[in-house]
């Protein structure tokens, strides 16, 4: 009697387990990397499967593919290229941030500002470069000169990307 009751309750419990497929390693198909590219105000990619991501790390330009060794990279202000599953590739200029590769092919990139290249104006970049050069070569406070140098670094990278 008892065993019958137990068997019946076991039957009731089982159906739920088979339905929800358990997430295993094979769910992230081995040649894709799961990218999350986030800015404070916007999420450009949210856990989306892509093929490759090229990032401008301080330690050098890197291409991140699936199964990359886990690492944390500080990013230079520069161009990120995302090669998507369909074969197209998108480029974004990021103002700086960090890229974190986690095990099981997950890549999280955080940046403060990031836009596709067509949103930039080459004239605005040129004007800012000449202004920043004036300040950097001038005799303002060290703080101002250092900030102008940071601006020049970003602007030169942006100008190179826009060509």
């Amino acid at each position, binding site marked *: 009697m008892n065993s019958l009751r137990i068997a019946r309750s076991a039957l009731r419990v089982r159906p739920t387990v088979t339905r929800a497929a358990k997430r295993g390693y094979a769910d992230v198909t081995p040649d894709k990397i799961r990218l999350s590219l986030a800015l404070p*105000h916007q999420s450009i990619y949210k856990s989306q499967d892509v093929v490759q991501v090229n990032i401008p790390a*301080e330690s050098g330009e890197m291409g991140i593919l699936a199964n990359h060794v886990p690492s944390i990279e500080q990013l230079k*202000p520069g161009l990120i290229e995302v090669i998507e599953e369909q074969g197209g590739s998108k480029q974004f*200029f990021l*103002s*700086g*941030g960090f890229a974190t590769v986690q095990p099981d092919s997950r890549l999280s990139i955080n940046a*403060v*500002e990031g*836009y596709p290249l067509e*949103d*930039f*104006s080459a004239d*605005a*970049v040129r004007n*800012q470069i000449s202004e920043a050069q004036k300040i950097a070569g001038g005799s303002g*406070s*060290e*703080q101002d*000169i*250092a*900030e102008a*140098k*940071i*601006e020049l670094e*970003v*602007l030169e990278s*942006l100008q190179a990307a826009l060509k």
Partner: protein
Amino acid sequence: MAFAWKAAGITYNRYLAVAARVVRRSLKDDKRLQAEKRGEMDLRFAKWENGKQGESRNLAEANEQAAQPHAGGQ
């Protein structure tokens, strides 16, 4: 890695803010107007001592004043 801005007394936070500001200013006009709003900060703070509130000061100005003697002393 020794960064030039770190040697000059600029924190990483400030470095990010400067880089973001430059990127925002380099945008085309329509995007730039929306983006510039993100760069605005108008924070005020006041120090409390013995249960009394001190004078309310603007955070950006206070940071600038605090940074000056440090940069000048380098």
